[in-house]
């Protein structure tokens, strides 16, 4: 045992390969290549192989996790440029209803309807929110919180778009495997695409808008146009998620505007660590299977997401992913304080 006057502290050192910068690695040996590639390739391979080993029910869970992951990624992109959304279910629902309309009224095939619903959903969301894009933080959050509730009320009250009964669509995926792999591949594509995007010059401007919008304005960049563009990208991603589920369940009703799809992505992003995209993806891959395991709780599920959300915001503000990343890139040892 240590004598009481000897203090121990944790010493952290960045690994040499990572020491120079945050993102550029100096690769000198096969070991280094593995070190850099492993955290990227392993999850991808795992996700692609996993469906072969899962039962149909667990495949469903995996697909649902990818869908929530897409919503969380789209939330994270908005958060990156300072737009704090409490209404991911708006984007999700608009996409789902667009897909429903494409199928129900226009009888388009899924391979036309799905991309069309994705893009038109993104366009509708960005047009809807364009007037309020000037708002910051809490105010933007308030508006996004209200919109899905209002949409739900409008559909309920006016009986448009199938009203309370919803629309039963006919088009669906040719078989299970196409659906499962489409969900997973789009999820992975969006994850790596967004990580690429946010490191590019374009993403740098988005992050700068979050940190100091005045400075970006004084650099002669139209921040509102940039925010609308980010809304379009994020809206399209979430609309794809909605449209995908419409085709999968061959049904769309106003339950797409429900709390599940607003809170779950937020909780996933908060749990995984906002601002990294990988965190949002990781969070949804943890949270969705967990909530499936807790399905027996029934109505308490949303309450339990809220609990996860509160705990992760208060106790783990940096998120699981940032924690893991730090551990991966650093040596740690206990040393005596002298």
């Amino acid at each position, binding site marked *: 045992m240590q004598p009481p006057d000897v203090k121990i502290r944790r010493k952290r050192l960045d690994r040499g390969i990572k020491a120079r910068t945050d993102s550029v690695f100096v690769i000198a040996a096969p070991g280094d290549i593995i070190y850099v590639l492993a955290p990227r390739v392993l999850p991808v391979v795992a996700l692609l192989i996993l469906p072969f080993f899962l039962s149909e029910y667990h495949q469903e869970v995996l697909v649902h996790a990818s869908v929530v992951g897409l919503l969380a990624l789209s939330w994270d992109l908005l958060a990156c440029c300072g737009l704090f959304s*409490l209404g991911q279910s708006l984007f999700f629902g608009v996409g789902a209803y667009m897909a429903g309309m494409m199928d129900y009224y226009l009888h388009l095939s899924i391979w036309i309807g799905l991309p069309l619903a994705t893009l038109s959903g993104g366009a509708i969301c960005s047009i809807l929110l364009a007037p309020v894009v000037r708002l910051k933080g809490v105010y933007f959050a308030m508006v996004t919180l209200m919109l899905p*509730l209002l949409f739900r009320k409008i559909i309920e009250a006016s009986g448009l778009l199938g009203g309370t009964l919803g629309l039963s669509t006919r088009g669906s995926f040719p078989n299970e495997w196409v659906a499962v792999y489409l969900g997973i591949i789009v999820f992975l594509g969006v994850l790596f695409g967004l990580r690429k995007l946010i490191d590019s010059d374009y993403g740098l401007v988005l992050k700068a808008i979050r940190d100091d919008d005045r400075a970006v304005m004084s650099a002669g960049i139209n921040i509102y146009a940039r925010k609308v563009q980010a809304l379009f990208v994020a809206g399209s991603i979430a609309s794809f998620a909605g449209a995908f589920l419409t085709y999968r369940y061959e049904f769309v009703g106003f339950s797409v505007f429900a709390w599940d799809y607003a809170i779950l992505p937020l909780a996933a992003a908060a749990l995984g660590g906002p601002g990294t995209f990988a965190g949002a993806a990781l969070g949804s891959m943890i949270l969705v299977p967990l909530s499936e395991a807790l399905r027996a709780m029934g*109505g308490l599920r949303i309450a339990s997401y809220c609990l996860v959300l509160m705990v992760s915001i208060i106790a783990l503000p940096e998120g699981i992913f940032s924690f893991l990343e730090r551990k991966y890139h650093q040596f740690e040892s206990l040393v005596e304080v002298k």
Partner: protein
Amino acid sequence: MSTIIYGIITSVILALYAVGFSLTYGISGLANFAHGALYILAGYISWNLMNYLGLPFLASAPLAVVACALVGFIIYWGLLLRVRGIPLSELVVTFAAGVAILELLTWRGFYGISYSLPVFVEGGVEIWGVAVDAQRLLVIAVGVALVVLLYLFVHYTKIGLAFRGMAQNERTALSVGIESDWIGALSLALGSALAGLAAVVVLPLGMMESSVGYEVLIYALAVAIVGGLESTPGMVVASFVIGFGQRITASYIGPKWMIIVPLAAIVLVLAVRPSGLFGKFKELEERV
């Protein structure tokens, strides 16, 4: 005529919804997204006190209001204190707390017509040929009394002055010995108590379900955004604008379009005057 009278009643109800929310926001900059949940919680508590403990409504209502204040205080002390100063985290925490409360109540099976509170006063009167029940007049009386009392409270009592000091400049308030955490907790408790008060007065008029909580939150937010936060006259005017807007929509277009009014009002106000009807320039900078 009935449009005018019921317009006034609707407006006062909206003001009651919003007063607690905008008071808390005005004092400590906390957007309490659990407001609607606390509203329903007050109804739930007083219903349970009446049906399980057999208390009369006149006793259970004040107890529910006090309980609400306590819950607000606990939310601040237990949760918000740890994320104080990060506005978005505060918002998410109150939002999550609110949704958790509402979902718990739904899970307990708290919806349907069997849950309703009795009115304080029975009967009704006729004003210019329009029948108005006494409870609705009571709502107006409570609303007016509340605004007057709050005005007196923040201008002539020590705690009220401390509240205003916090609202104007937190650092300066600290330097003259106003404990900012304590005042923040009190402001949330007061806001929650006002939500509870609104609940026990307004809920007897209609059904009590947890989904009403979301509506209350929407209306409170709409009034707060339209009126300009932390401005009491703005709040009153905004609730009249939205209240009359709703009544006129209901009479001439159809009741199901009533819910559009707050959204339309918000979009219009944000497009024309982003700081709200009575907002000050300082808020403009915060918002845009």
